[in-house]
């Protein structure tokens, strides 16, 4: 069988520096999935982009060829005329970008952006295209495809935007799908659903896939071949079973060793004590009204409802849950970036025994102090970094705002935090766009750390990191927590990470917390059907134990299909019940 895509000796560099992609070669067979794994910043994204010839203006392809096409019809994409290339893009090859938040046009409705592909390459009329898009939206897990169709990107949660991006890439059923970390912002059940969809499509149309991912579990479940990259070079490449089973290269081995796993727990943890709370959310709800378009009445979207979260000082409270369940919203409310609906309160206590501050009703001085003590790592690092500020400016800005240190001190601190997160200080002069996704995520973490905060809200801080760097970052966070008593509100989809770092976990679904307990308790005895589904859906990096994508994707279904005690309909959810000490579950008594 001839490969559908054959990359030979591809080298890409910037400016006068050495190549960042260095002699990369690999093939993708029709109908197969090739997983691209490797260190953050190793050139995966650039390799993928070079296939579509949408590298940054400043990048130079220094050598190599990219042949695409079945059998003898292959052409070198790098040589193709711009016009022929356009026919390939979106039609025969499409790409899911790593950072879906930035990659969608902020001014156009999602439906329009997705349907455009169909209108362009399939010559579909608007109603037909709309139908097809709505179907795809449904398949990527939108509960309300119509709302997604109408929505603007900024009205959507991170995962929702990612799913829109996925839908955009898949709706035209391309020959080759390049998926650059397509599921980083998705919870595991949705992830399973998306992966299932990819699989289905592969079966239907013989689509080949390049799957860039950090999740070895996903690799194990999806890929026929694996390419491992590090520092721009291919370290190892081969059939998935062989590479995963017995890594031959030192880097591969190290990488696989670093993969975290959901622990097998023997006994539940003790109930946590909620004595010295640094952050206390009570009865927080948030309703957005969205423009419905035309003259229609605006739509009310409840992002979260009646959320109570308490974060003890020096502890980590993890929030996991469905994509779009209001995690980010809660985090933003917790830091005062968003006003909760009336009735909800957020209290912050800067130090033991100190006066509690009402986060949404602060004096100027209190606010300044609060903003120095509480920092946030944004889910979307790209958008949260000013595109016209060099990294150095971005990193020193918080200190400048709060008047900390001299210029030189601030610069040194910036270089230091950068080193903490595993980046080199010579990147200080770069602009945010000149980084890889994972590097940007680390920048965002670094910036949050420059002020030595006491509370850190991390919204999926490690989703774009490969397991070894992730391990490094987690270790860093743990270190600081232990050293400086930092408290974390930690949002994540990766249960393994949560299991490692959290002292308590809250599971959210549809804007409400459905179960809350220390991780050990949770993994030992998950009570809520949704929690159970989540744990079941976590893929494992073992080719021999694939999860049934179809099955787990169904997850726990909608609340009205849940077993009796948990079932609810509409917005009238049952209350949280403390089943065991410290183990809260939303169920009818």
């Amino acid at each position, binding site marked *: 069988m001839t490969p559908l895509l054959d990359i030979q000796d591809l080298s890409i560099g910037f400016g006068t520096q050495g190549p960042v992609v260095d002699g990369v070669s690999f093939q993708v067979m029709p109908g197969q999935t090739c997983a691209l794994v490797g260190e953050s910043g190793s050139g995966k994204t650039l390799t993928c982009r070079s296939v579509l010839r949408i590298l940054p203006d400043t990048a130079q392809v220094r050598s190599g060829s990219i042949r695409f096409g079945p059998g003898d019809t292959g052409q070198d994409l790098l040589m193709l005329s711009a016009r022929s290339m356009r026919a*390939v893009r*979106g039609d025969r090859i499409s790409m899911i970008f790593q950072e879906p938040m930035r*990659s969608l046009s*902020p001014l156009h409705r999602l439906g329009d952006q997705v349907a*455009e592909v169909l209108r362009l*390459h399939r010559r579909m009329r608007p109603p037909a295209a709309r139908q097809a898009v709505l179907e795809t939206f449904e398949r990527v897990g939108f509960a309300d495809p119509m709302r997604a169709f109408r929505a603007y990107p900024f009205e959507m949660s991170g995962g929702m935007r990612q799913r829109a991006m996925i839908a955009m890439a898949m709706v035209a059923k391309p020959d080759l799908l390049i998926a650059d970390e397509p599921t980083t912002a998705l919870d595991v059940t949705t992830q399973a659903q998306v992966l299932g969809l990819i699989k289905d499509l592969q079966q239907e149309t013989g689509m080949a896939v390049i799957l860039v991912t950090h999740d070895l579990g996903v690799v194990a479940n999806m890929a026929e071949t694996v390419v491992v990259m590090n520092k721009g070079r291919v370290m190892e490449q081969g059939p998935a079973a062989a590479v995963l089973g017995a890594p031959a290269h030192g880097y591969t081995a190290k990488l696989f060793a670093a993969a975290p796993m959901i622990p097998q727990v023997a006994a539940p943890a003790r109930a946590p004590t909620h004595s010295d709370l640094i952050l206390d959310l009570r009865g927080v709800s948030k309703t957005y009204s969205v*423009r419905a378009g035309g003259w229609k*009445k*605006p739509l009310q979207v409840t992002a979260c409802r009646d959320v109570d979260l308490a974060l003890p000082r020096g502890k980590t409270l993890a929030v996991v849950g469905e994509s779009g369940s209001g995690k980010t919203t809660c985090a933003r409310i917790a830091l005062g970036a968003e006003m909760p609906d009336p009735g909800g309160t957020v209290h912050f206590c800067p130090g033991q025994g100190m006066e509690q501050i009402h986060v949404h009703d602060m004096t100027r001085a209190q606010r300044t102090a609060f903003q120095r003590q509480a920092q946030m790592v944004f889910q979307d690092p790209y958008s949260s970094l000013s595109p016209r500020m060099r990294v150095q400016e971005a990193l020193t800005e918080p200190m400048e705002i709060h008047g900390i240190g001299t210029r030189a001190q601030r610069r040194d601190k910036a270089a230091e935090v950068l080193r903490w997160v595993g980046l080199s200080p010579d990147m200080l002069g770069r602009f945010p766009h000149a980084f890889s996704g994972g590097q940007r995520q680390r920048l965002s973490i670094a910036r949050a750390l420059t002020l030595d905060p006491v509370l850190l809200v991390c919204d999926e801080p490690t989703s774009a990191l490969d397991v070894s760097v992730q391990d490094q970052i987690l270790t860093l966070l743990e270190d600081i927590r232990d050293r400086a008593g930092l408290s974390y509100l930690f949002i994540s989809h990766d249960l393994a990470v949560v299991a490692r770092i959290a002292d308590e976990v809250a599971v959210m679904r549809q804007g409400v917390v459905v179960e809350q307990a220390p991780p050990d308790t949770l993994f030992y005895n998950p009570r809520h059907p949704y929690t159970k589904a989540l744990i079941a859906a976590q893929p494992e990096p073992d080719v021999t134990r694939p999860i049934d994508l179809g099955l787990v994707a169904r997850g726990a279904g909608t609340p009205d299909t849940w077993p009796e005690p948990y079932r609810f309909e509409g917005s009238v959810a049952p209350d949280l019940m403390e089943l065991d000490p410290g183990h809260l579950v939303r169920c009818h008594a």
Partner: protein
Amino acid sequence: MMFLRYAVYRFVTMLLTLVVVSVMVFVIINLPPGDYLSNQIAELRATGQAEGVAKAEFLRTEYALDRPLWEQYLIWAGFAPGPQGFSGLIQGNFGWSFEFDRPVGEIVGDALWLTVLVNLAAVLFVYVVALPLGVVAAARSETWVDYSAAFVGYLGLATPNFLLALILFYYGHKYFDLPIGGLMDPIYEGEPMSWPKVKSILIHMIVPTFVIGTSGAAAMMQRLRANMLDELSKPYVETARAKGLAPAKLLAKYPLRMAFNPFVADIGNLLPAMVSGSVLVSVVLGLQTIGPFLLAALKSQDQFLAGFVLMFVALLTLIGTMISDMLLVLLDPRIRYGARGQ
């Protein structure tokens, strides 16, 4: 719903602003010392026309311009009854022009639509020329396309309008037999619309459109180019490119829309700015637009005529700003007019 509410709210605001503006307009036209009739009498005396003096004196008694200013305002605006009862702007009576000796409405009738026509043509010209050129200049920035667009644009911008008009008229007439001045062949004036008349208007509009339009076009082109360049490297443009969109369509649909924000903000001012900006051009080019009337009225302090024209321009401005505010919301869904953090 939200939008509708905003529109209604914005409309009411506009009406209130209009009232304020009308007060200011009235004050401004009454600011210079002297008034039309005294000037008129002086002019008549200067040219020895004893005959007219009597008539001017007659007008003074007839139009009772002797009341206090505030009362004159109320009467003019139609808030208070004048000698003939309520009969002011809001009742649709625009007043009397001393200079032209006819009701204001009658005088400006034709001029109004010609003004709007000429300026719409200029606006159209600006958009038709500047929009694509600006986009192309950005897409091909720092190539000869870009440079020559800049050169031509600035050439138009850096030539005084009247000189440009003169050059165009002179050589246009010499080599292309274009007409000099005017907005249509005078023989079609007052005639009903007909194909030759339309043709005549079109031919006559070439130079004025060009002259009024060039500066606007250059300005728009360069600003658009700058804004486009900012947008072109944004990731969403890459996404669009990855979809396989053709360059023209891609540029028009994505970055252009983003880059358009500052222009939408100014859309409201497009027409009024051209109306007031083209006053002098119209005067020297002899266009039968409202501009020359305004200048003549202001110079001779023909207060009702000046007041009406100024109010007309003000109304255009206000409506324009209102439209631009509403368009802005439609253009960029993220925009809310609420205060920070609400």
